[in-house]
């Protein structure tokens, strides 16, 4: 980013002396030059301010969305606890919490079997053979570059092999830069295939000479998440000692429901999408949690907290944590004494819900930030019914599942900590479960902050904010020198903080919008000094000037922001009216800024953004009704007259979609009218607002049902989406 030279680096040359002379004595050419320089620097500063604000907008909307998601999820947890099994609302969502009975890996293997899937002659995509070779993997990269799609048979086969491999990998991979190998480390990719291809182009494909670490968040948001996974997994299979994948917070099926990955897979694989998603769910839970280079550099996705303990983490059963948003249930044992390896999953063979699980009505629903501990306790209550069996058998089974890398001693320890005490109220039991879960959530969700200390990350709703003192302590405790993490988008693709002891690396360029940021990757040799390579995918962006790129990103951010403003119209108007007791329709700009923050809580610099959001004012007073009209938001063309219902839909667009997808248990993309009605009931419960049956019926009348009386989720969401147009006055060529 260009910024003007500052006073402190200002070089006092002859020009300064001349400048301080009376104007007439300065030669005209120099006067002209001075003027142009002054004018241009002013312009650049303005651009920088706009760029910074645009960034704030995107980031705050993004994090608010994450917070929303977690709140929604906590709400479901609350439902599970407080509603009887007979309640219809609870049943709608119970399947995402449901335990099942018998579920061995053998049964799963049968379910995921690809052998019966035939590849038709007409198929022109790549053919894979197993064990997969490096030319296969390279072929896959080429195929995806040419926009081909891998046949579902090969997808399932590849994923199956990946799953088998991941199960024997440890929680924390240890790698070394021996033989003068340089290691390449990539951050978030988020479905941006063009960025991965660019990295491979610039840096070369993974191989034993070219080891890679991919630091999580491979999926969601971008449109080629699955292709990225398939590429990474194929290289993992070919070079298991040289390709390392760390789990990110988006490697989580609950998060995927909201952020697009689920939708992508179902869209690309209509017949087998559901199976693919199920297998991926297992794969995600088996992804390693961190990588350590030369015992000195720790690489993980989110971050750390003041309680981070790598020794504890290396001992957990990481696959228990299918979703970081939900702590695991205790293991249950069926009659034969074998334990489940995968709880809470849909069992393809046994369909009945376990009726012996009773919930205790104990806790009141707490606020979003305190919820993590509440949720822990919630899940551990009521797990009373267990068939006891020998500790030996339990150990044997766990060893089989956990893989050979764990020693008997390790297993024994983890068993003592978690399962041996049958009393659910025992504090010790609570804590060790709680401990493990907290460690994992912290690793995947935390962000660094400039101040010392460690506080809950309320902006995202998960993990914590940790300070430089925590970095020092945790690094010291483990004898490490550097923490490399991802999780946050950075303008230049990377950023140091905490006295250069923490390094953020982000590999998805143009993340918010074309031109918004560069991506980067790290090359690191035995000296453990990181070297950065930056890039920006999409040839068009490189040709954009700073001005154009800021302008474009800014228009996009402002559009997103205006849509949000419009969605909150009635709350905003009430807030404005509090400042306008005489109902003149006018408020001051200062009050406007105050109201905006009070309602939206995005922490945005409203006064600075004002010039972009507000047109003309009368003597510094804003006509707020007129302002709403001028926001230039196109509402969907609908006969629905219920304005407040519409507004709920705009405001809670993502939540609504998430609930739909959860309810759509067979992942067909369709729900029945009854399910539709139940969705609204759930949403109104969560929001604690009233949505009448009549309003829902009106809504139903206004939408198109399929012939069989079902609603297509995608169509519905698109039909009721707000569309922000560009404001005419700020149109820049």
């Amino acid at each position: 980013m260009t910024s003007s030279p500052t006073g402190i680096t200002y070089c006092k040359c002859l020009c300064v002396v001349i400048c301080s002379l009376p104007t007439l004595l300065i030669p005209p050419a120099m006067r002209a030059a001075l003027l142009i320089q002054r004018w241009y620097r002013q312009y650049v500063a303005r651009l920088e301010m706009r760029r910074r604000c645009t960034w704030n907008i995107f980031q705050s909307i993004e994090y608010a969305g994450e917070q929303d998601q977690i709140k929604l999820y906590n709400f479901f947890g609350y439902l599970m606890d407080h509603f009887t099994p007979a309640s219809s609302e609870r049943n709608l969502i119970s399947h995402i919490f449901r335990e099942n009975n018998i579920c061995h890996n053998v049964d799963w293997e049968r379910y995921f079997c690809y052998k019966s899937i035939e590849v038709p002659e007409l198929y022109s995509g790549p053919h894979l053979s197993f064990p997969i070779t490096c030319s296969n993997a390279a072929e896959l990269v080429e195929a995806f570059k040419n926009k081909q799609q891998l046949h579902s048979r090969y997808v399932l086969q590849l994923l199956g092999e990946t799953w088998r491999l991941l199960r024997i990998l440890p929680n924390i991979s240890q790698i070394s830069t021996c033989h003068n190998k340089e290691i390449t480390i990539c951050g978030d990719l988020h479905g941006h295939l063009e960025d991965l291809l660019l990295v491979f182009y610039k840096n070369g494909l993974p191989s034993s000479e070219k080891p890679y670490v991919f630091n999580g968040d491979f999926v969601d948001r971008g449109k080629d998440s699955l292709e990225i996974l398939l590429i990474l997994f194929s290289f993992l299979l070919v070079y298991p000692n040289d390709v390392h994948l760390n789990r990110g917070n988006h490697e989580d099926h609950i998060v995927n429901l909201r952020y697009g990955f689920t939708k992508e897979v179902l869209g690309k694989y209509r017949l087998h999408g559901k199976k693919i998603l199920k297998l991926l769910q297992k794969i995600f839970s088996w992804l390693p949690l961190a990588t350590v280079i030369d015992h000195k550099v720790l690489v993980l996705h989110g971050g750390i907290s003041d309680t981070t303990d790598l020794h504890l983490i290396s001992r957990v059963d990481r696959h228990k944590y299918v979703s970081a948003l939900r702590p695991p249930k205790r293991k249950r044992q069926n009659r034969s004494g074998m334990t489940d390896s995968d709880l809470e999953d849909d069992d393809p063979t046994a369909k009945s819900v376990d009726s012996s699980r009773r919930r205790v009505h104990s806790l009141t629903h707490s606020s979003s930030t305190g919820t993590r501990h509440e949720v822990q306790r919630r899940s551990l209550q009521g797990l009373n019914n267990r068939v006891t069996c020998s500790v030996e058998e339990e150990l044997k089974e766990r060893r089989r599942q956990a893989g050979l890398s764990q020693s008997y001693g390790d297993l024994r320890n983890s068993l003592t900590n978690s399962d041996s005490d049958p009393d659910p109220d025992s504090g010790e039991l609570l804590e060790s479960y709680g401990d493990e879960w907290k460690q994992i959530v912290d690793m995947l969700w935390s962000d660094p902050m400039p101040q010392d200390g460690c506080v809950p990350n309320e902006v995202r709703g998960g993990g914590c904010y940790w300070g430089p003192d925590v970095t020092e302590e945790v690094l010291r405790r483990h004898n490490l020198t550097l923490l490399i993490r991802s999780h946050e988008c950075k303008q230049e693709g990377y950023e140091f903080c905490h006295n250069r002891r923490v390094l953020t690396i982000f590999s998805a360029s143009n993340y918010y919008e074309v031109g918004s940021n560069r991506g980067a990757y790290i090359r690191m040799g035995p000296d453990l000094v990181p070297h950065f390579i930056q890039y920006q995918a999409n040839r068009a962006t490189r040709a954009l000037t700073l001005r154009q790129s800021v302008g474009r990103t800014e228009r996009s951010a402002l559009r997103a922001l205006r849509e949000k403003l419009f969605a909150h119209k009635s709350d905003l108007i009430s807030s404005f009216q509090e400042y306008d007791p005489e109902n003149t329709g006018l408020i001051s700009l200062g009050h406007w800024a105050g109201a905006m923050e009070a309602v939206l809580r995005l922490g945005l610099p409203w006064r600075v953004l004002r010039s972009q959001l507000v047109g003309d004012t009368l003597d510094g007073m804003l006509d707020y009704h007129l302002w709403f009209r001028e926001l230039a938001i196109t509402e969907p063309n609908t006969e629905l007259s219920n304005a407040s219902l519409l507004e709920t839909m705009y405001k809670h667009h993502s939540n609504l979609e998430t609930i739909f997808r959860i309810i759509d248990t067979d992942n067909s993309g369709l729900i029945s009218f009854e399910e539709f009605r139940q969705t609204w009931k759930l949403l109104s419960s969560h929001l604690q607002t009233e949505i009448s049956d009549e309003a829902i019926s009106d809504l139903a009348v206004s939408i198109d049902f399929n012939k069989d009386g079902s609603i297509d989720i995608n169509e519905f969401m698109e039909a009721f989406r707000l569309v922000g147009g560009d404001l005419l006055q700020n149109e820049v060529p």
Partner: protein
Amino acid sequence: MAEDKESAEAIVSEVHKKIRAAFDVFDHEFNKTVDVREIGTIIRSLGCFPNEGELHDAIAEIEEEEPTGYIRFEKFLPTMTKVLMERKFRPIPEDLMLQAFEVLDKQKKGHLELEELTKYMTQEGEPFTQEEMEEMLSAAMDPDKNLIFYKDFVSMMTVDDPR
């Protein structure tokens, strides 16, 4: 009289809030300080057009006795308020900008050559850094002809200005 005083206070209060808002955008640690290197951006974003020398003087006034590399809001506010109330560092009107370019365009061609403009901007006045020069050229220059049609450039930059 009382009314005037009230409205004067209201104006100052608004000015303070404006300054605070701009300052906060760069206060990354939420501790009411900003990196001194961002002060120029903040001052300019508030609508002022200081030259480098004036900026340097302003910073000297705002900095601590022993410079820490950071500027505190308590020191920034009074100086900046004065700047805004006294309307120092006024904006440059479009026609004056045009005249400035015309002065450099000795042959009155209606455009400037790449080398001409570069020479002036990097050698005269308060010279541009190479980065600044490249950025201006990418915005101002017609890449096929390597010429700067300054009249269009000035209009374009002025339109861009969100007030």
